[in-house]
Structures are given as structure tokens and as C-alpha cells.
């Protein structure tokens, strides 16, 4: 029975975290109307719809949602947020759930979105700018190199047009930027 207890604690911890984001407390006012699920371009593929996520969150059983890939299917389109009659910033809730999923290791091993996000942040922290080619290559090499083949037709077209940035640009103030980033809570580790 120990497992249940751990999960209950986790459920409560997740709920508190979501309540702490800007306007997060509004989830208490969710009417379960389903406008979010109806608006969501990804809900057809989600095991738990946005409305169900709020319900699970409030019931303290959100940990179950993490057993599916639901939160990683959010396209960040903000349609749920602007349509919610209770003013719940559901897109931000999804971001927070992704963040907690990464922090607490609550994701399936084959969850590529996390690799993508991490590869991106590391690249930006190395240059101060994004370096698309390096980022995409690293992403596919650490996930599924074969999938890279699926991207080659677009990559070749871009290459022919001279639209691939082969020489990443490093900003001048990179050393200062690193200090700034390191100064925020959790800044220098965890990516």
C-alpha cells in the first residue's frame, strides 16, 4: 500500500505547484464545461483531455496523467486559455506539468519532446542564440537517427537555398548572460 501513499503525496504536490503559477488558483473555479477539450487541436490524441486533466489535478490523482504522453501533445496554441470561462490559463498549466514531469522524472523513456526541449536549451546556453542545424542533428542523434531521413527532403531544399545556418553566432555578452542565468533558482543545473 506504500505506493498509493507516495502517489497521493505526489498528487498533492503537483496540485500545489500548479496553484502557485500566475492565476493558477483559478483552477478551483473550473466548471468542467469542457470548452478547453472541445477547442484543443490535440485532444483527439490525448488519453486525458484538458478538462479531465483539471479534474484529475483537483482530485489529487494527476500522477495517472503522467503515465500517458498527454501533456507532451500540447501544441501551445492558447485556444483553451482564451476560451475558458473561468479564466484558467490552461496553456501555462500544461507548461508547468511538463516542467514537473521533467523534474520528477514522470515520463515515459521514449518521450522525445523532453530531449528536444533540453537540446534546445543547451544550444541556446552555449551561444546565446539558437543554432538550428546543431540542435536538430543532436536531437535526432540522441533519439532516433533514422527519423532524420524523414527530414532530409526539407533540409536539402533549405540547403540548396542557402537557408541552413551552418555557422552558429555567439553573442558578445555570453559570459554575462551565463551569470544571469546561473543567478535564478535552479539556473545552473537541471537542464
Amino acid at each position, binding site marked *: 500500500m506504500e505506493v498509493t501513499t507516495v502517489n497521493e503525496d505526489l498528487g498533492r504536490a503537483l496540485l500545489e505547484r500548479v496553484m502557485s503559477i500566475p492565476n493558477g488558483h483559478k483552477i478551483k473555479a473550473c466548471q468542467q464545461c469542457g470548452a478547453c477539450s472541445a477547442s484543443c*487541436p490535440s485532444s483527439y490524441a490525448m488519453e486525458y483531455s484538458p478538462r479531465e486533466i483539471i479534474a484529475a489535478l483537483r482530485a489529487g490523482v494527476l500522477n495517472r496523467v503522467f503515465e500517458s504522453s498527454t501533456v507532451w501533445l500540447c501544441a501551445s496554441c492558447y485556444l483553451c486559455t482564451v476560451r475558458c470561462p473561468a479564466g484558467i490559463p490552461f496553456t501555462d498549466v500544461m507548461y508547468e506539468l511538463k516542467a514537473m514531469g521533467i523534474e520528477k522524472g514522470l515520463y515515459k523513456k521514449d518521450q522525445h519532446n523532453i530531449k528536444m526541449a533540453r537540446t534546445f*536549451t543547451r544550444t541556446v546556453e552555449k551561444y546565446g542564440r539558437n543554432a538550428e542545424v546543431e540542435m536538430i542533428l543532436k536531437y535526432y542523434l540522441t533519439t532516433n537517427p533514422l527519423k532524420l531521413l524523414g527530414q532530409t527532403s526539407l533540409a536539402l531544399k533549405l540547403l540548396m537555398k542557402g*537557408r541552413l545556418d551552418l555557422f552558429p553566432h555567439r553573442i558578445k555578452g555570453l559570459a554575462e548572460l551565463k551569470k544571469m542565468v546561473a543567478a535564478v*533558482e535552479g539556473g545552473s543545473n537541471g537542464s
Partner: protein
Amino acid sequence: MEAERKYSYYPGCSLMVTNRSYDISTRNVAAVLGIEMAEIEDWNCCGATAYYPVREKRSYVLSARNLSIAERNSTDLITVCSGCYAVLKKTDKYLSEDEELREEIRAALREGGMDYEGKVKVRHFLEVLTKDLGEEAVRRHVVNSLDGMKVAPYYGCLFGRPFGGRDEFEFPEAMDDLIRWLGGEPAPFPLKSKCCGGMLMTTQPDMALNMTGKILRNAKSCGAVCIATCCPLCQINLEGYQGKVSKRMGSDCSIPVVYFTQLMGYAFGLDAEQLALKDCLTDVDSVFAQRGSKR
């Protein structure tokens, strides 16, 4: 004489090489309109939305550094990338509303010798054109009228959501107006603010291709000869996968896709080079070259 209009300009990473045609056409269109856009010095990546789940506060630091640099100019900050626009605006809003967060981020900036007092207004170029300049200022420069050309104005998510006005959330009209001012006809385009799935294209390609496909098909079915976009992420998504999408949807989804600034530049009589048309991945000749230019 044009009244002088001064702004700061944040191009963003994707405009450096991959989507430089948006940067080039924006600068040239601005020059015609007498808008001065001073690129902010040594800007960094805005953090894009991929940053939030990994470390939200770091993303605020990245954006705040850009805002801090822009604050030196005391003018509004223009960006043409809807992704950068939403991220910079979100940071500015949350910093102004949440004192604890603000102080933490300002302290971090000071570690690197900067600070941000919250005085920058972040604007999308499309919004500046329609609100600060308006119809007369634009029409006056049209030498190649679009002559009733039917254009599908695609806004995507982040131009109007979540920071636009209420009507802009789902029914933005800024680009519709602009197309009219250029002599064109905005196509009635129901999916104009639906998500193209850009965020999911690398990690969930099946879902993303379906989303892109619906938009392309919808634009075609409302009789548009091209789609105009106002975001580099939407642009590459809509122009880059048309072959794959057509196969998947079982119908021809190919349609020229251009930046609204390229459409404007054409109407203003700018040449192909000034609009970097050679970078386009779709058949833009059918939109521009075949109509010719009166200049």
C-alpha cells in the same frame, strides 16, 4: 514629409538565416514607409516556448535581457516573429504583475550588469502597421495594386493569443485590412487562426502534418491564390511540407505561401531581391512575376 516613426527591432534567431527573407522584406517595407527600426544590440534568443517546461525562470531571464537592451532606446520594441512576440510579451506582463518574480529576475540581470525597469512595450509589426500607421499611410505607397488578388491571411496562434484584444483571439483582421489596402481581397478563411502544429512537427510529425494539411486545404478551398503569413514558424511549416501533406490528405495541398511583408513590398514596387523571393519554397512566381510590376 513622412513623420518620423522610431522603433527598436528584435529580429530573433530564426530570421538570421533560415527565414532571412522575412527580415529583409520587413526592413525594406519599413524603409518605404519611413519607419526607423533600430536593431537592438547583441540580442539573445528569446527562449522560445520550448524553454518554459525546462526552466521557466531561465526563459524569463533570456527575455528580460532583451527587454533591458531595448529599454535603452525608449521606443516600442517591434518583432515580426509571433513566437518571439508572445514570449517577450509574456515575460514583460508577468514581471509587471508579480513583484517577487520581478525582483528575482532583476537581481539576476544585475549579476551581468543589466537591469529592466519595465518600460518597454512589445509590438508585432503587423499591429504597428495597422494601428500606428493605418490605411492612408499604406495606400499612398501602392504602385502595383494587388488588383483583387484573393489572399488567405493566416495569423496562426500567437499573433492574437493570448495577448491580442478579444476579437483577435480567434478572429484577427489586421492582415485582412492590410490586404484590402494593397488592392487585394482577403479570402474568407475560417482556419486563419487555427494552430499549424509547428511546435509538434519534430516530435509528433503525424499530428502536426494533419494540422498543417487542414489549413492548406482550407485556404485552397476558399479560392485563395496564396497564403500570407506573419510568423516565420508558421511560414516554414506551411511552405516546407506541402508534398508530404498532399500525400497524406489524398488531395493536392500545394499553394504559394509568402510573408505579408513580401506581399506589401510587391505592392510597393520593390524588386524580387529586396523581398528575397528566391528563398521561397513554393511557386511564388505565379503570385508575383507573372503579374509583372508597373515599376
